């Protein structure tokens, strides 16, 4: 037990000494890592925002068919049951005239008086569809439009949804590619820094192994060094992220308040924590990999 503690103390000391001896390279690796991770964070934030926009829009109806006041309720029920069976259709909801009025009143609170003075409820009931697969929407809309005895009109906010879905798909793919690429770059930079340190100390490694050091004793300082670079780089990135958020978020929110942009505090905090963890893991893995080949002594 005390032996383990002594080794740990040695490993930490050796790691700090190693970082200090190569302080120029250490600094370079830290800054590069920080820049990589800030870029990574920016992409994650954009991606998250787009995803939220798509989800938010997806929650709304993809198709609304307004029911004529004189339509037979049993016929409407029949059509709804049929729609539920169709492939690509997610959910079929009936919104009564009363519901429609209530929703209208909630949404336009200010104009409440206008409605109040109306004798009858002017809003139609509607059948609303939420799609699993937006591709079948156009055909479905045409079909419902043909039922002139049942539906007054059919509304499809199709274009917006479609465009957003495709943007989101592209951005998700690009985002994933960026995440992989940037993580790889950070990994490479850290691994390379450690590789140079390992190379400079390869004889030392060999000697230590020959006098009875375990692999962990030799590897430990390098892994701590890599983890340290990753951690400090990531902490810098996280600080930069929070500062940028505090500066930029209020402006963005003001400019495009109608979009559900991912700028709430918990998201930024999670992102910062995530970035720090990525840095730590990337740093550790990078050094683990670089020391490996010199341990076969």
């Amino acid at each position, binding site marked *: 037990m*005390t032996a383990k503690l002594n080794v740990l103390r040695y490993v930490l000391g050796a790691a700090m000494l190693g970082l200090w001896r190569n302080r120029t390279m250490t600094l370079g690796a830290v800054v590069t890592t920080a820049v990589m991770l800030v870029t990574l964070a920016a992409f994650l934030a954009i991606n998250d925002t787009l995803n939220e926009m798509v989800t938010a829009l997806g929650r709304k109806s993809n198709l609304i068919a307004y029911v004529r006041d004189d339509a037979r309720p049993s016929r409407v029920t029949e059509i709804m049951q049929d729609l539920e069976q169709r492939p690509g259709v997610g959910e079929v909801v009936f919104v009564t005239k009363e519901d429609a009025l209530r929703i209208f009143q909630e949404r336009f609170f200010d104009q409440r008086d206008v409605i109040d003075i109306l004798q009858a409820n002017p809003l139609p009931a509607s059948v609303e569809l939420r799609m699993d697969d937006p591709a079948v929407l156009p055909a479905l809309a045409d079909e419902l439009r043909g039922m002139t005895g049942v539906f007054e009109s059919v509304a499809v906010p199709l274009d917006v949804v479609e465009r957003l879905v495709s943007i989101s798909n592209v951005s998700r793919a690009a985002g994933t590619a960026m995440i992989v690429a940037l993580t790889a770059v950070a990994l490479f930079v850290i691994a390379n820094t450690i590789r140079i340190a390992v190379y400079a100390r390869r004889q030392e490694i060999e000697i230590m*192994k*020959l006098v009875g050091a*375990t692999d962990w004793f030799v590897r430990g300082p390098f892994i701590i060094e890599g983890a340290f670079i990753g951690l400090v780089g990531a902490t810098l990135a996280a600080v930069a992220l929070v500062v940028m958020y505090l500066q930029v978020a209020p402006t963005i929110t003001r400019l495009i308040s109608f979009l559900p942009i991912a700028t709430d505090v918990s998201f930024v905090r999670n992102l910062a924590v995530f970035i720090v963890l990525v840095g730590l893991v990337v740093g550790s893995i990078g050094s683990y990999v670089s020391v490996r080949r010199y341990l076969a002594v």
Partner: protein
Amino acid sequence: MQGVTKSYDGEPALADVSIAIARGEFAFLIGTNGAGKTTLLRILLREEPFDSGVVLVNGVDVSRIRGAALTKFRRRIGVVFQDTRLLPNATVRENVGLPLQVRGRANREIDVAVDDVLGRVALSDKGERFPRQLSGGEQRKVALARAVISKPDVLLCDEPTDSINPAHAREIIGLLLDINSEGVTTLVATHDSEIVNNLRRRVIRMDAGTILADEAVGVFNTS
């Protein structure tokens, strides 16, 4: 070791070498440059793989050592390398204490042990120097101190008196005999004819990768 063969890129370095050294024994390994002495010692430390034959050290079959067992195996062996292999960026004290450091000993305990062995090689006043600030002979003494500090069962010395003047060489060998008398099996590869002739110990003579002679009381002759 039994029937050991080893070649480097097709060039034979050891050819069917068989020797047995008993626990606690002291033996010299002599032979011309390139005879295979260093190669033999490196195989005993499992630093270098070999092609065929069987090598047992401390009852352990060297060719079967894997992973963590290697560390355990090497901790029972002290080595003075022909090229000393001191850490250039570490002081004499740090170099000598390294075997204990890697074993996770406490710094206080290491300090005491380092004081003790540095005293034995008469380098107490040079503890804070770096290897490059020492003479060749002093570096060799540091290497010896490092080899014995962990009280190994087996001591392998490759030219421990190389570049050490005769008076100091006798001191070093005296130290090796002391250590051997404490029960440490000691194998010393050397070119130093004076020492071999004076000590009248077991001599294993090598040439071109084979054992030429193995005499219980041997002398160094160059024929």
